[in-house]
């Protein structure tokens, strides 16, 4: 499965409070959460994000709270994949568990600009920047995690096991 889209780029330590502020956590409705995604960091995000766009971030992306509402809001906003230099660990788990593809690649992040067109091949562990023409290798997920992703998330994985 390949993900192709235009880049929306942010810096280091994008925290879960700016991804989805707690004042909106009295619901878990996906569309409602998507309406407020990134609001406290970038008021223009919701109006400019297109289906399939790729979010790029720096170190420690998704730090802070365990709220699964953060990856849900990003996914529901139309983002197809997140590429960052590193992810905070709970966000990393949550993204895998709900089926939001995420990839760590510091070099790619450094050389990618807002608006670039990226293509991500999770199985091959490859990223192509179609704007610059550069290619990057990423670490493939361990088999166990690939199984969860193939199942479409942790819940389906558990159903399959039963």
């Amino acid at each position, binding site marked *: 499965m390949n993900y192709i889209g235009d880049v929306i780029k942010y810096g280091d330590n994008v925290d879960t409070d700016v991804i989805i502020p*707690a004042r909106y*956590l009295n619901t878990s409705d996906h569309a409602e959460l998507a309406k407020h995604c990134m609001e406290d960091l970038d008021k223009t995000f919701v109006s400019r994000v297109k289906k399939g766009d790729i979010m790029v971030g720096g170190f420690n992306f998704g*730090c802070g*709270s*365990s*709220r699964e509402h953060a990856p849900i809001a990003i996914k529901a906003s139309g983002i197809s994949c997140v590429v960052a230099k590193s992810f905070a660990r*709970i966000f990393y*788990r*949550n993204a895998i568990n709900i089926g939001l593809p995420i990839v760590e690649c510091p070099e790619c992040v450094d050389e990618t600009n807002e608006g670039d067109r990226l293509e991500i091949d999770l199985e091959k562990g490859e990223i192509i920047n179609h704007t610059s023409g550069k290619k990057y290798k990423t670490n493939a997920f361990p088999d166990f995690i690939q199984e969860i992703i193939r199942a479409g998330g942790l*819940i389906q994985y558990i159903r399959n096991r039963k």
Partner: protein
Amino acid sequence: MGMTMTQKILAKSSGNKYVTPGMLISAKVDMVLGNDITAPVAIKEFEKTGAEKVFDTEKIALVPDHFTPNKDIKSAEQVKLMREFSRKMGIKHFFEIGQMGVEHALLPELGLVTAGDVVIGADSHTCTYGALGAFSTGVGSTDMAAAMVTGEVWLKVPEAIKFNLIGKPGEWVCGKDIILHIIGMIGVDGALYKSMEFTGEGLEFLTMDDRFTIANMAIEAGAKNGIFEVDDETLKYIAEHSSKPYEVFTADSDADYVQEYTIDIGKIKPTVALPHLPENTKPVDELGDIHIDQVVIGSCTNGRIEDMRAAAKILAGRKVHKNVRCIIIPATQNVWKQCLKEGLFDIFIDAGCAVSTPTCGPCLGGHMGILAEGERAVSTTNRNFVGRMGHVKSEVYLASPAVAAASAIAGKIVSPAAIMD
């Protein structure tokens, strides 16, 4: 090669003799936790699995503490969902308003978590229970749902960082100053994916409340968990609070650490984290004049009885500055009752503070003390991200209860010594 405390607990709970960092394991859990923000999502995911019952009705704790007492209709609906699920499944540890407290203060107090346990919670500050010598980590709602079905969680065995604490803390220095100092030193991703293992002769000067505060903020350094070596202080706490069986795991002398720090806690000064990251730390004496609008004393980080006593010691016979609102939130009903018994509420109210029923409330900008544009707070909570406590242009300075109380009196951020000497 030997194993760390964390590795030993994970080996036992996954049925392995030996685990190494990077290994993916499935561990049996002793407690699964959720709150009124994360549990509703987990309950919906639980239902999707088709499971008809939970793995164990006594190993799940549901604590509605974030937006409670219900701040609006949507929050009330979320708690209603938890309540109905608890009744339907026969979950023993659902805590209604009147019994509930801030989850990470409540569970240890009731003895529901203990040394050697594997605890996962759909709340990032679940790492708090490492103070008891447990492996304890935050996860998301889907992980919580899966664990409620299977009683297990998938984990990658973490690498470890050792913190060897030496020395004796000075007056007005508590667990909060120590952990803020450490986060300032290693950064908000300084322990990313790793365990923080606390040991050393300095532990004898740290109370259990100090240790809960330190373990609580391990997540603010990116850590998977924080864990303390079990000593007499821990065993005394466990004996007073818990009847659960427990097991003490100690690190092997040849355990492998990717980094080791020796920290003289006697040299740490009262410390504050400036906006908008917990790593932006400075000794309070180096701050200059920073005027404030609000003080919050409470939360899973600093809402325990010693925190209340530290605040009361400074507020006794003094008045909160006319430009400051001071909000005090004991973390549990037991802490509340103890404050009442010791006369601390008389001190707080005479000083001009507002005292609230237990809630996470203002810590995450939920309710009970939201900041307006341009306002500045000193808070004993754990995060100072952009917009954390209210308006996107408000500011949060993280500090200990003593610094927060002193600042409430001064109207600006000051050290306790500035008020007391």
